[in-house]
């Protein structure tokens, strides 16, 4: 989870690894500031995400996300026909292309909420944005995706 978060934010495997190393080290050294009884995971994730953001700022790199190979795709139930599998694969590929084409901040909020399945509060912590900003950017990002996919209401 920490590594995937760092990967989505930093945009490369090497930067994500650096972010995790630095983040875990800082978390260890900052243990005295951890509030006992508070949820532990978001705290660590926030520190790692912060490192990942620093990596991104310094390198302004961006890697497009990619799908696993088609035969490993989750198909949700009974084995589909080859035609249906191809269709589902194309649908997902199209959706991923749309996500990849979003501007970075929109892509990040989509990634946190749907790919990492973080709550709004956790997303705000991880990205360092106010919760209101998370909500408004998410809404804007979903609108843009619908627009690109030709699903926008008239």
């Amino acid at each position, binding site marked *: 989870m920490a590594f995937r978060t760092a*990967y989505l934010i930093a945009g490369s495997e090497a930067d994500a690894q650096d972010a995790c*190393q630095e983040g875990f080290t800082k978390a*260890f050294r900052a243990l005295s500031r951890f509030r006992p009884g508070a949820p532990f995971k978001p705290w660590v994730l926030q520190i790692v995400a912060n490192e990942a953001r620093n990596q991104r700022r310094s390198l302004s790199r961006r890697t497009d*996300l990619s799908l696993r190979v088609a035969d490993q795709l989750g198909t949700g139930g009974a084995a589909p026909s080859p035609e249906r599998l191809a269709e589902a694969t194309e649908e*997902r590929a199209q959706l991923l292309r749309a996500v990849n084409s979003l501007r970075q901040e929109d892509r990040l909020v989509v990634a946190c909420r749907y*790919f990492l399945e973080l709550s709004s509060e956790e997303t705000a912590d991880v990205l360092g944005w106010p919760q209101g900003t998370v909500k408004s950017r998410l809404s804007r990002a979903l609108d843009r995706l619908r627009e690109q996919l030709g699903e926008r209401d008239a």
Partner: protein
Amino acid sequence: MPDLEARLLALGRDLEYPNTPDLAASVGARLARPAVRRFDSRYLAIAAAILIVTIGGLLAFPATRDAIAGFFGLRGVLIERVPSLTTPTASPAGSLAQRLALGRQVSFGEAQAALPYTIAYPQSLGPPDAVFLLQPAERQGVALVWSPRADLPLTAETGVGALLIEFPGKVQPDFFIKMLGPDATLESVRVGGNAGYWISGRPHDFVFLDPHGDPQQDSFRLAGNSLVWNQGTRLIRIESALGKDQTLALANGTH
């Protein structure tokens, strides 16, 4: 077609991510750099402890683990008290599963069929009186309960003799120590050559690392003593009213 949000959630589960790297050695090396010299020996011991957990696979090898622990002087007793934790909440009324938040009760056979590992338990206790699959199911955990009997005294307020909880994961001593609370003491022990911790008093929360190296939180269920240790890829915890030596004997006979 499902709505966009549902499709995005499904897409997230099919994304290609790089494999999570082995971070143990590099994090350990950073902790050992000059900045760590500011710490006293207690922190050095904790720094060694961070290396023993699953931030990476390197430390899955006992020889490596022992070498690093030895280098940092992590031998013998490690006791820490932490002030200002809140009091644990009382166990709610209801069935055993509800009171102890143990998940879904099943037969031993059903539990074994649902899990990817062979369930280990102290052979001297015999088969458990009740078996629960922990929730969420992804944790792949099982809880085994033994009723009180002559060799297994009642644990206060629970009606249980002994509770064993087992799931894939590793103990994460530095964070775990901090979350134990002011009324618990911790002693490092060895169980069959593996790192273990004897916790007495009234511990608070239990923090461990799941197989992905991410910290997770759990609570102690009984108001008794606990022994936590790593066995293979799993983390096993016994809670009971037994003393340290008796519990260690149970743990050493767990397979």
